[in-house]
């Protein structure tokens, strides 16, 4: 009893499965991980189901249906720690674009019989539904970060996930600033680190898939985009409304910018 392995569960709500795939993409570590902990519930990987309670639940996806709104309560009740993985679970994901529109109209665009479809008006992050112990950002999450989060929670310590911006990663990597040197609009200054400054390293401006960093100054960056780089208002609003549109800072800024107009 004393040496019981900690139980890990992986849950899925509205999502693309990419964040849980990240766990299976840890090819070098996966079997080691499976030997240190008990993978008690992870339907994408195994039929085996071990009853809760679970020491750590990783939750992928956002809440978009009445059924899922109930199910997340059960997940919370069965879990000691609950950590959200990815943009959907943490900010509502790309499907939160419905929050800015009429969902009934959305359903009628995709489905001939929208009355067969049960869906909520908004796509909400897990934290809007239950208490969350930690949120791991990213669309998709990083392999290294998920391993760090799992090991931190199972050792009852705080995960070492820096909350600074992508800019710091560019500097650390020696990537020349694409915005300053090439005039490419980049969300790096307001975006949470974790990807390793991927886009700038590929000659592309950051598009914010890791969501907001802590205390981002969005209006200042957008003034720079529009004033210095000639980005049109509708385009800057749209960039904020992509994979993390319902993350508070992004939502507030895009709503404010829309109100101000061009």
């Amino acid at each position, binding site marked *: 009893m004393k040496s019981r392995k900690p139980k890990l569960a992986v849950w*899925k*709500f509205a999502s693309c499965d*990419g964040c849980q795939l990240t766990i299976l993409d840890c090819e070098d570590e996966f079997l080691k991980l499976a030997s240190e902990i008990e993978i008690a519930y992870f339907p994408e990987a195994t039929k085996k189901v071990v009853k809760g309670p679970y020491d750590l639940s990783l939750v992928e996806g956002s809440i978009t249906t009445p059924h899922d709104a109930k199910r997340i309560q059960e997940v919370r009740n069965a879990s000691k720690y609950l950590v959200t993985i990815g943009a959907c679970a943490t900010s509502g994901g790309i499907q939160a674009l419905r929050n800015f529109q009429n969902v009934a109209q*959305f359903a009628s665009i995709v489905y001939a019989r929208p009355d067969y479809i049960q869906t909520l008006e908004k796509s909400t992050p897990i934290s809007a539904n239950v208490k969350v112990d930690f949120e791991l950002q990213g669309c998709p999450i990083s392999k290294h970060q998920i391993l760090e989060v799992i090991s931190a929670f199972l050792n009852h310590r705080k995960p070492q996930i820096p909350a600074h911006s992508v800019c710091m990663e560019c500097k650390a990597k020696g990537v020349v600033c694409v915005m300053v040197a090439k005039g490419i609009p980049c969300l790096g200054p307001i975006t949470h680190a974790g990807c390793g400054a991927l886009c700038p390293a590929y000659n592309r401006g950051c598009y914010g898939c890791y969501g907001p960093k802590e205390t981002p100054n969005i209006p200042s960056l957008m003034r720079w985009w529009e004033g210095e780089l000639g980005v049109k208002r509708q385009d800057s609003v749209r960039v904020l409304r992509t994979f993390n549109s319902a993350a508070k800072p992004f939502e507030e800024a895009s709503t404010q910018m829309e109100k101000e107009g061009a």
Partner: protein
Amino acid sequence: MSKKEEKKPTKRTIQVKYLARVEGEGGLDVTVEGKKVKELALRIFEPPRFFEAFLRGRKYQEAPDITSRICGICPVAYQMSAVSAMESALHLKPENSIQQLRRMLYCGEWIESHTLHIYLLHAPDFLGFEGAIEMAKKFPEIVKRGLGLKKTGNSLMALLGGREIHPINVRVGGFYRAPSKQELSALVPELSSARAAAEETVHWVSKFSFPEYERDYEFVSLRSSDSVYPIERGQVVSTSGLSFSASEFDDFIKEEQVPHSTALHARLKGKPYLVGPLARFNLNFDRLSPSTRKLAKDIGFVPPINNPFKSIIARSLEVHYACDEALRIIFSYEKPNEPYSEATPRTSVGFGLTEAPRGLLYHQYKLDKDGIIEAAQIVPPTSQNLMTIEEDLKSFIEENSELSQKELGWRCEQLIRNYDPCISCSAHFLKVKWEEL
């Protein structure tokens, strides 16, 4: 679970509540009376995410990034069909080296996605394990070989795409950054060992025991005018001799909605059809690389193959082919002059059709004069296979009604997994539940 032996036709329902080892959320309900299947529904209850709706009003350049989020398992397929559709709309024809890089990126996804399915999701069915973790206790070296192979697919995607899941380097017109020959050559040793591991994989899966079960399928896949196996381009062809281009897709294939599913069901000229590795293999055997073709012949696996349980062999041969093809492209690669060409927006409609690991993936976009998307239509492979999966289940249950409840349930799940269904794509999940009334 003791089974009552009765002569009188019994009515029973099979319900797979929750099908594990698939991507997404779904279930299966079957009512059987005697030997006849009365009702059968593959329920897809993956929450709908409305991509086609929120693509409206977005810029044409955003389609590859946005649609890749439909599926974390095959994001490259979405990006490739999206760029192909946009380029057809905007009359853009990227140079050959760009096409080759795309093909190689796609090979990476085939290797990764197929290997995930072969080793982690499907092989445990044949060997009687609940999953790969359990299988690794008995066969650690085999599972490690699978993980190593999968990792090579990921390395290819990480180099060409920036990362494995939702690559960032793909754009309409080309890539943000084209790799140097040297960067690609660094992958040669890893790809060569992957190719050897793929060969071992083919031999390994070919020795599994397969239920004797065959049906006459209408296989549908792309076929290209040049001599390569279909991946990122081609004309649609079928077993019955149909042939059409991406722009005619809508005339041949119609999607319909059923109450038990958030995924739409597609039919070809009113009938179910099959897409994916088995279809590609049967229709393009002559287009495999000589070494993959030889390997197939060595194990006695030549078209026509009509046993869906053997799709795992076709999938393994495609992994071998993808390693071969990636190596071929690396050796002949010359860095493009420009990583991408710019498009000029115009009022237009574009069609894109490529071979996702699970089969045909269709995109269609209508653009306004500024390149804003006015309408989008996406038909993923799993929606196209749903009717065929339902028919497989029905006929298999009727032919094997003497099997025990447990075994039949297991086989039903396996039948579904033959298609590597990606419910996240088709909308998403599966459940199988059994009750005897």
